[in-house]
């Protein structure tokens, strides 16, 4: 889109007759966030035209802080106002109030009060105008290829994300906007801080738009996208309040799809138990106990006050973690896995197929008696919104039983955790040694000096779909890297490993909390790992079509043709001469 000058003051004219331009209220209504009732609920925002955001956006984004500042000013001038109204002038303003009183006295003395009021009014008008124009200039459009956002008054920014590069779509509802029925849609593409944010939209629009974007991104044809977006009937004028209440209570708004059913239920007991048994929490408690003991023994009771911040910190940590995870849900949708978190502020993220670069299933030692596990993933995008308890949104399952782990793995990696791989996964999670069929290659006996307890658990297995790295006898862990996502593979050997005829292997994926490595393998096994993984990764990358995940069903012949054309111009690889 080169024809748009960077300082295009007006977005292109909206279509006049063809579309009922519902999301385009001409009058600025920053204080009336409730959308007018009776308009069509599902506007097709993904029609390739420019649209504006929710009219109350400035209020949600910065206006609340602005109102708070005005509140602070009013509170500070309270005495002044009282004096003005009740007319007594010997109020004891105290040492803090003197300066301010002097400033206002000065204004009164110099008869500048009118000027000051005008100036204040001017600033206020400027701010309101700024908010209005920033809302007006903040437009987005969604075409079949990309989602594009333009914003800014003086400094225009134009951000465009390609749809086939989408790594995830997040519908976030922070508490206050959620009360007003607004939500923000965050479209992440690969990279750090590479998100296209549509903040804020109407809640229902956000859900409809998410579905439309996913449909467009999936490679399904546009017509089918249009046909599925039938409009839902609106409740009418009296239904607004009803609808708000419903929106607030419904865990997940989806206009078209029947609400996807979460396959994991996180009981509050397990959530609280797992939080109390986490290692961070135990360390914090031990520190507090140490402070109490030292305070009592030394008789210096004021030390007890020193632990107040610590207590508040622990309380905040627990509260955040529990409320964030309380309404946890994970469900399968046609467009990928949907993970939801949050009690008051909710986030709901959809990860299209093939966007998960590696998966780690781990079990902290204290969770072992209860059979609890945790699942984290590596993703190519970094979301600005946090997941459970301030963890990055890489924790997909905060805590779950073995059955939950199986179900979630089946969603995250449908091929690598299919029914016939269940035995392998079982062996990978719980087993040790090479397994009955010798699926796992474990460290040789001479590696015991490096892996005291886990020598027989430390090993890898290669399934046709993924590489499985199993580690740890005490802190059990399993890392699964699907071959289509593997970037490269390496094998290392330092002097210590060489003396033991060992080597370590690394599978490289995008950066994240997981780094798939395995140490202390036999040199020959490591070499075999290197060769087989490199070959499988190549095969898988060529067969992979998950960037357009629905295209393979709809246009099978076409994609096959595309694959063969991609195959055709293979250049011979000739190494350049080294001079």
């Amino acid at each position, binding site marked *: 889109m080169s024809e748009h000058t960077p300082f295009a003051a007006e977005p292109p004219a909206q279509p006049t007759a063809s579309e009922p331009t519902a999301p385009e209220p001409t009058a600025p209504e920053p204080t009336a966030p409730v959308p007018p009732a009776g308009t069509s609920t599902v506007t097709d925002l993904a029609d390739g035209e420019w649209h504006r955001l929710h009219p109350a956006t400035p209020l949600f984004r910065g206006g609340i802080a602005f109102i708070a500042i005005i509140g602070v000013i009013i509170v500070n001038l309270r005495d002044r106002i009282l004096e003005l109204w009740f007319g007594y002038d010997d109020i004891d303003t105290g040492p803090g109030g003197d300066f301010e009183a002097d400033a206002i006295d000065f204004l009164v003395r110099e008869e500048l009060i009118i000027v000051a009021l005008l100036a204040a009014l001017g600033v206020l008008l400027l701010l309101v105008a700024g908010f209005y124009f920033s809302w007006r200039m903040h437009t987005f459009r969604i075409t079949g290829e990309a989602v594009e956002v333009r914003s800014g008054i003086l400094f225009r920014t134009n951000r465009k994300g390609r749809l086939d590069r989408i790594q995830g779509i997040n519908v976030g509802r922070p508490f206050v906007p959620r009360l007003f029925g607004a939500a923000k849609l965050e479209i992440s593409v690969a990279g750090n801080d590479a998100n296209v944010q549509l903040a804020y939209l109407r809640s229902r629009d956000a859900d409809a738009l998410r579905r439309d974007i996913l449909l467009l991104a999936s490679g399904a044809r546009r017509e089918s996208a249009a046909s599925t977006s039938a409009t839902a009937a609106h409740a009418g004028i009296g239904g607004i309040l009803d609808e708000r209440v419903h929106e607030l209570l419904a865990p997940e708004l989806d206009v078209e799809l029947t609400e996807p059913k979460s396959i994991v239920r996180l009981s509050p007991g397990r959530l609280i138990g797992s939080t109390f048994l986490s290692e961070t929490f135990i360390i914090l408690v031990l520190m507090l106990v140490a402070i109490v003991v030292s305070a009592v023994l030394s008789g210096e009771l004021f030390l007890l006050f020193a632990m107040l911040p610590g207590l508040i910190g622990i309380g905040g940590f627990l509260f955040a973690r529990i409320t964030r995870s309380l309404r946890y849900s994970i469900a399968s949708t046609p467009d990928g896995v949907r993970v939801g978190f949050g009690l008051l502020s909710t986030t709901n993220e959809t990860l299209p197929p093939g966007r998960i670069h590696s998966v780690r299933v781990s079990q902290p030692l204290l969770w072992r008696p209860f059979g609890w596990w945790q699942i984290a993933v590596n993703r190519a995008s970094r979301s600005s919104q946090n997941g459970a308890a301030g963890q990055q949104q890489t924790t997909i399952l905060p805590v779950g039983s073995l059955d939950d782990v199986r179900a979630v793995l089946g969603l995250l990696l449908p091929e690598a955790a299919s029914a016939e791989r269940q035995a392998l996964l079982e062996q990978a999670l719980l087993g040790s040694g090479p397994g009955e069929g010798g699926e796992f290659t474990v460290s040789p006996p001479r590696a015991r000096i490096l892996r005291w307890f886990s020598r027989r658990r430390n090993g890898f297995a290669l399934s046709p779909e993924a590489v499985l790295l199993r580690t740890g006898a005490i802190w059990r862990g399993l890392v699964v890297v699907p071959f289509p996502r593997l970037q490269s593979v390496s094998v290392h050997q330092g002097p210590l490993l*060489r003396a033991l005829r060992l080597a370590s292997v690394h599978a*490289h994926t995008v950066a994240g909390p997981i780094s798939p490595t395995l140490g202390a393998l036999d040199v020959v096994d490591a070499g075999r790992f290197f060769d087989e993984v490199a070959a499988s990764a190549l095969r898988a990358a060529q067969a992979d079509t998950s960037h357009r995940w629905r295209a393979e069903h709809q246009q099978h012949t076409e994609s096959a043709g595309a694959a063969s054309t991609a195959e055709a111009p293979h250049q011979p690889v000739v190494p350049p001469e080294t001079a």
Partner: protein
Amino acid sequence: MSHEDHDSAQAGASSEAATATAERPTRRLERPETEWQRVSPRYIVVDMISTFITGAIVTTASLIPFWLGWEQGWMLGAGLAAIFVIVLAVTPRRVRSIGYLLRDDDLLFRRGIMFQRFVAVPYGRMQLVDISRGPIARAFGLGELKFVTAAASSGVLIPGLPLETAEQLRDQLVAVAETRRAGL
């Protein structure tokens, strides 16, 4: 215990296989490939000069406590100097160990003698190729080529390529990556 026996039997089998292929138990990581592309021998000089400069600066800085009156301070400088001399001594071998190989669908890269490292990167995973040249390398007409994937840990950095080779290699990598393009 039967598992133990099974394991040791398996380990024995694998080491037997190793002896069968290499005639002796392999300690080192070995690759069947032999036709590695090596970096320019001039890079040995470049690497030695830059090691020498770094060593001189670090050693001088470490001698400051000695000049300020710490009697035993010279040992610090002497130790560091010894380390840098050793690094200088192994530089030729280290540089000769750097190699790359363009296979049909992936790039193989190796480096290190003490700390060996082999990487295989499919061409289709390439995000970009960088050529950079430091002042010393430029004086010798060399440059280094960096092959960047979406994984930061891939770390394929081929130093000491003559500039025309580096540019040729870059163009070729871009061309083959285009024909073998894979998603993220």
